[in-house]
């Protein structure tokens, strides 16, 4: 049972990450390669400063999300100045910089040794009663995911959601209609970074040990894989993608390959799924049709 719940927690974390990545990439049309940077920053902020204080989790979550959002201002500023490949390169640079800082600024982040013994979350100061810790974390993460999914379902049909999609489809038309596309970009990155950081908080408190190698460029690419395999633009797609990338290795476990090979095989399947999706089904498993022009 704990095994299933563990998978459940990881699925929840990746649903948050994929939904967060969907905001800029799927809704606003800006591919960013630095989702793992926000995820990592949220994780480190929570692990080093917020969790040791034993504050209520809602309070910590708000602080972490605010922090992620504020950092995202850098990226959204870049998105105003740079277009196309140049913007993607800038996000890539930002991702590498954040990783290098997490890895090398040993005085603060403990560098490659990572942060061990992270204090778990407290709900309103009482802990989680008699539930096993995995079950408790599953409930907490499911609560957050539920909130975020509801928010996104609402967002799709709200004026703000429509505006984001309009920016994705035709920025100049949006300007012509008297709306400010720059503001939309700021908002979408702010929310995206905030939810990525929230996933970081859940990860830090659940796993209890973090090190910078969980937040590399490869992780950013992995998040994008999950997103684009699932499909972009709506809520179903990212959720399906996150479930796919987390469940797949568990299924492969039963084939009985040695561990190292299983990891490689998993990556091969992700890569293949991504290419096949791009060829035959750009909307992914169940994303919105027509977002990725083919």
């Amino acid at each position, binding site marked *: 049972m704990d095994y299933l719940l563990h998978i459940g927690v990881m699925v929840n974390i990746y649903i948050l990450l994929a939904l967060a990545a969907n905001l800029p990439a799927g809704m606003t049309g800006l591919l960013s390669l630095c989702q793992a940077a926000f995820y990592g920053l949220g994780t480190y902020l929570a692990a080093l400063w917020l969790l040791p204080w034993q504050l209520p989790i809602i309070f910590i979550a708000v602080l972490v999300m605010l922090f992620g959002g504020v950092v995202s201002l850098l990226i959204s500023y870049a998105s105003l100045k740079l277009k196309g*490949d140049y913007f993607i390169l800038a996000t890539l640079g930002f991702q590498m910089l954040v990783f290098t800082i997490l890895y090398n600024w040993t005085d603060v982040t403990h560098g490659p040794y990572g942060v061990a013994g992270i204090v778990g979350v407290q709900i309103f100061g009482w802990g989680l009663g008699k539930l096993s810790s995995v079950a408790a974390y599953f409930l907490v993460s499911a609560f957050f995911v539920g909130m975020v999914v509801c928010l996104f379902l609402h967002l799709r049909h709200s004026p703000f959601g429509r505006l984001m999609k309009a920016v994705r489809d035709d920025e100049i038309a949006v300007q012509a209609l008297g709306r400010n596309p720059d503001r939309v970009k700021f908002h979408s990155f702010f929310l995206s970074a905030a939810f990525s950081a929230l996933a970081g908080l859940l990860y830090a408190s659940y796993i209890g040990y973090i090190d910078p190698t969980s937040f590399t460029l490869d992780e950013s*690419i992995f998040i994008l894989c999950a997103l684009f395999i699932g499909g972009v633009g709506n809520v179903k797609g990212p959720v399906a993608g996150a479930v796919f990338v987390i469940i797949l290795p568990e299924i492969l476990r039963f084939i009985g390959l040695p561990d190292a090979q299983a990891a490689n095989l998993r990556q091969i399947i992700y890569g293949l799924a991504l290419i096949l999706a791009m060829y035959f089904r750009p909307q992914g498993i169940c994303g919105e049709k027509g977002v990725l022009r083919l």
Partner: protein
Amino acid sequence: MFWQFLFNGFVTGCLYSLAAVGFALVYNTTHIFHIAAAGVYTAAAYFFYFAAKYLGVAIIPAALAALLFAAFFNVACEIFVYRPLSRRNASSMVVMLASIGSLTIIVNVIAMLFGNETKIIDSAIASSFRLGSLIISQPQAWQLFVSAAMLAVFVIWLRQSTFGLKARALGNNSALFAVFGFDAARTRLGCFALGGVFLGAASCLSAYDIGLSPHGGMPVLLNAMVAMIIGGVGRFFACIAGGILLGVLQALVVWQFAANWQNAVTFTLLIVFLFFRPSGLFGSRTRAV
């Protein structure tokens, strides 16, 4: 010590230049963000390793075969991944994601076949010679000599040959290029093949010196991209200058601070250039960002 660092940086820079030219041959002409180039780079190194270690081919023929292999591999990427997508007018985001997918597949297939650990081709300690106060190892001499020769021949050839002219024309406006009756698909293949040769050369030269691992391609490709941006997109000569500049700068960072801050400087440089001088040091100014 300063001159030694400068020299080492220069040699590393030459390798970046090779890789940057390999990447730019595709990017400047087709505007494809060829991330799978990192996979081609890795595959060439492993082909070299396989030929030299398992088949017992001598080092130089093995390296030449690896160059050929890299050229074919790069062409295969175009034929099987990019061409079908460009036929359907895929957006650059789709092409890039497909490229990321290809890279993932290539790297992990290699890791499954050869293992994840770093391999060494020549385990003997490399001989070295002194030039004044400089110590030059034998692989370094090879790197310097081969890359300088290749880059020089390339720059001259690109200026003089019809292919060079075609490549630049294709990069400028591919639709107009086709209107004038040239075969855009064939020129693209030529660019991919030549790009593969340069990637393979960078890969073999570095594998001979420091060994190879399945995940070694991406860091080199990132450096090559940064070299291309700081040199200037659209010009091959600028790539070469950017690569050498980046290599020297990284060496100076190691000399003054520490090796682990190399990446921080590299990517700060990338961001500074993207914001304040997106056309690079020597790029054409007219290019829209």
